[in-house]
Each structure stands twice: as C-alpha cells, then as structure tokens.
C-alpha cells in the first residue's frame, strides 16, 4: 500500500543526502584559509550596520494572515476539482457561491488598501 509513496520517500532521502553531502564534502575537500575579512558577514559589500535580527513589521503579518485565509479556500477546491465532472452543474454553482462570498472579501481587502505596502 505504502509502495505508491516510495518515490516521494526516495526524493526526500535524495534531497537530505544532497544537502548533507554539500556541507560535508565542501568542508572535507575545500581549502580553508580564513582571514578577518573573509569571515565578516557579507552585506552587499558595505560595512554591516547593526544587528541582522531586526523586528519585523506587522505588515508581513497581515499579508500572511490573508494568505492563510485564501489558502484554506484552495484546500476546498482540491476535492471539488477531483469531482468536478461528476458533480456537474450543481457543483459548479455550489463552488461559484463559495468563491463569490470570498470574492467579496477580496474586493474589500483590495479597496481597503490592505494589499498595499504602506
């Protein structure tokens, strides 16, 4: 039964090996001549200013939140797409209603300017 998922497992294993391999081999094979300048963090060639761990703006959060809400909408479309032909016209109307209600939300968000980077 789980055999169907074997390719995914193989892919996961290969991805892990690739990631690990790159780190391990480069540290084994690569030349190491560290100096003060080489070890400094790279920031577009300028002198690094301040800490890299700044507080994030709440703007990101709003976008992420909206993303989740529309993402959940997409989850519902998955079984609908699988059954699309069998559900026929009725399914189309049903999903159309679902989308229209969320479209109201989309129009609201757009008009409100919540998608803009203020």
């Amino acid at each position, binding site marked *: 039964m789980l055999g169907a998922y074997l390719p995914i497992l193989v892919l996961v294993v290969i991805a892990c090996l690739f990631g690990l391999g790159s780190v391990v081999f480069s540290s084994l094979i690569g030349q190491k001549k560290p100096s003060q300048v080489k070890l400094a963090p790279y920031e577009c060639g300028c002198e690094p200013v301040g800490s890299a761990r700044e507080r994030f703006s709440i703007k990101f959060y709003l976008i992420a939140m909206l993303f989740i809400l529309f993402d959940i909408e997409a989850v519902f479309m998955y079984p609908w797409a*699988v059954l699309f032909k069998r559900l026929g016209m009725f399914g189309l109307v049903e999903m159309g*209603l679902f989308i229209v209600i969320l479209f109201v939300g989309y129009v609201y968000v757009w008009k409100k300017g919540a998608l803009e980077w203020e």
Partner: protein
Amino acid sequence: MESIFFLVVAAVAVISSILVVTCKNPINSALSLVMTFFCLATFYVMLDAPFMAATQVIVYAGAIMVLIIFVIMLLNVRVETVKRGTHAVIAGSAIGLFILFQTVWFLMKGSMTGKVGDMTKEQIVSVGHVELIGKALFTDFLLPFEVTSVLLLAAIVGAVILAKKKI
C-alpha cells in the same frame, strides 16, 4: 516493513514534539513543529487518508508555520530570557503523563470502541479518499461548506481591522 516504518516515524514525531517545548530558541521550536506536522502527515498517509495528509502539509506545515515564524520575528524573541519555573515544568509533565496514562489505559481496556462506519479500507482505497471526502462535503455537508466561506470572509475583515496600520 510497514510497522518498522511506523515506529521510525513515530519516534521522530515524539522526539520533535519534545524538542518543540524544550528548545531555547523559538525558531528551533518552530522548525521542530514543522517536523511534527510532517510526521502527522505521514501518519495520515499510512491511514489511507491522503487528502488529510495534503491538507496537513499545505495548511499547517505551509501556511500556519509561516505565520508562527512571522510572529516570532515580529516579537523579536531570540533566546528564551524568562527562566521557566520548576513548578510549571513539574505540573505540566504530571498532567501530560496523566493524560498519556489515561489514554493508554482506555486503549488497553478496549472500551473505547465507537461505531464502525460502513466504509471498509478496501472501499476507500478503490473509490479514492479525496472522492469520498468531496462527495460528503458537497452533498451531505453542503451547508457547512457554504458557511465556511462566510466564516472566512468574517475572518478576512477581522484581520484587516485588527492588523492594518491605517484603517
């Protein structure tokens, strides 16, 4: 073969969920949580519920985790600065162990049997899990499905109202 696979995934799930609560760095905790979510998705696959697995990965490991990490960065918590009280650790562990014990006890006693549904495993595999869920969702649970969209709409408005800078 399958039971060995299960044990490996289960061990990873337990270890990563313990890491979620013990890591000092919140980002490490969050990444351990991702690992736990993936293990859960694997369990769903093993239970012949691929749709649940996909949802788990798309919604939880994908979207919800992004939000959690945003919040960590928003608050700019680096390493836990508040020292955990030993009382809290002891009380938490005690409650956790109690619930674990209780669950195991009920399972051992075998009294936790619910009503067996009319779907057999073979049926689910032959018809398809997504098809079955979809059929239930778009016929039997038609009304809850449509209410969900109103719920999401209200949540969108709420998110904008509470988090937008200028309203």
